[in-house]
């Protein structure tokens, strides 16, 4: 299959017309689930993801951590979110994604401020089109902030990868399926520390450097989208 699909056209552009370091458009909004303590909705290209956050006393009691909160993200995909119906419920892929998202969020939340609490992050992918884990993570940190949970920083996620022999930012579905490598990464922008990083495929160490610097550059824009979404909800009319 690989090689049969030409991912980079003769004029050096990608199949959807983007240049190598161009992102798909992102729309982000908070306060979309009325019952939840915090929530967010993100559209990242054709991805559509809703996140709702509940902060509560951890249950069962023996699972409580006396000196800090625990973070439980649950990444789930709707049956209708992909080409062929996905059987609802957790599978191995979604469980791994839930784990790495929970771990990344744990670094962003000031866990010591919420002893014995549990921060439940429910992620529902309504439509999937490559890059759902980092779209979910990007939206989750905004939803957690929307819930008023004390945070060190907003986690920002993005993918890069290799397609048609070229390092490109924010893989499309075709590039994800037929490309050579996929590199999802998430960073705390304030310190530049990496809190999520996975690779599968084939990249040389040099290509890895190229991919990560592309991601780091894109972080600024994504960070701004996150802040704008929160500002839209929380800025006071006529205030400073």
């Amino acid at each position: 299959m690989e090689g049969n699909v030409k991912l980079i056209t003769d004029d050096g552009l990608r199949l959807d017309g983007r240049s190598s370091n161009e992102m798909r458009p992102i729309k982000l909004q908070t306060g979309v689930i009325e019952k939840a303590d915090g929530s967010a909705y993100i559209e990242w290209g054709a991805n559509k993801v809703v996140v709702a956050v509940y902060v509560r006393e951890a249950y069962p009691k023996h699972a409580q951590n006396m000196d800090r909160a625990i973070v439980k993200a649950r990444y789930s995909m709707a049956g209708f979110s992909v080409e062929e119906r996905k059987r609802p419920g957790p599978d191995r892929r979604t469980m791994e994604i839930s784990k790495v998202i929970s771990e990344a969020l744990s670094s962003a939340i000031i866990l010591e401020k919420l002893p014995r609490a549990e921060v439940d992050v429910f992620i529902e992918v309504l439509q999937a089109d490559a890059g759902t884990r980092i779209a979910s993570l990007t939206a989750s940190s905004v939803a957690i902030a929307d819930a008023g949970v004390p945070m060190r920083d907003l986690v920002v996620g993005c993918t890069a990868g290799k397609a048609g022999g070229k390092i490109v930012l924010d893989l499309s579905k075709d590039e994800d399926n037929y490309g050579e490598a996929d590199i999802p990464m998430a960073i705390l922008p304030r310190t530049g520390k990496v809190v999520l990083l996975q690779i599968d495929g084939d990249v040389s160490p040099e290509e890895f450097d190229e991919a990560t610097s592309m991601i780091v550059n894109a972080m600024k824009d994504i960070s701004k989208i996150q802040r704008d979404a929160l500002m839209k909800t929380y800025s006071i009319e006529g205030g400073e």
Partner: protein
Amino acid sequence: MPMDSNAVISEIKKGVILESLKNGKRLDGRAINDFREVKITENYIPKASGSAMVELGKTKVVAGIKIEEGTPFPDSPDNGVMALNVELLPMAFPTFESGPPSEQAIEFSRVVDRGIRESKVIDTSKLVIESGVKVWMIFVDIDILNYDGNIIDACTMAVVAALRSAVVPASKLGKEDFKLPVNSTPVSVTMAKIGDELVCDPDLQEEQVSNGRITITMSEDNHIHAMQKGDVGEFSLEEIRKAIKTSCDTGSGLRKELFKVN
């Protein structure tokens, strides 16, 4: 790897580990990039199509392969199938429980699987019996018998050794048995971040005091085929670059030593 209450380690021990690392020493005398002693016993389970037991220090795992006929996936009619699973047996550690696989077990399975799959160890196009109808399916099961840290690397070694010894039972179909074609020799190198140091092949107590884990799987081509940042913890890009370099150097050494390939 904070594996709940039984994984608690005393503050004193933690202090000793950190203090010792400042002088570049680990409690068992290893240097920062050293692996523990590795012992591989190939063909450990003769009834399996391929197998190996790996002892990485006191961590002990057995990988067994069964090769059976089956139907290919509809979207890849001309490829055999590989499935890989890691079982954290309850005998291996006080907090491992029986029942459906834990998140931890699933993460380990998937990281090992990606390293093997993406390094193209097996050419699945050579495992077709009848296009679109019948292919060879490679089932790789890994039992963790004793857990003393760094399951991922022990499993990768065991799977590679088992695949290298595997035989496709084609005589069942009236043909001749043949050795499973193996194309590359991936080695995964897992590092734990302890204080400001990245140490290779962490043992249990090192995992317990670590702030984050990173696994990088490379093949003979010195390209990255799988990478996983695991557990709660943060890495700078500088640290990740260093980890890639270490994986490359330490991995090549292990490949030569364990599998006699460059």
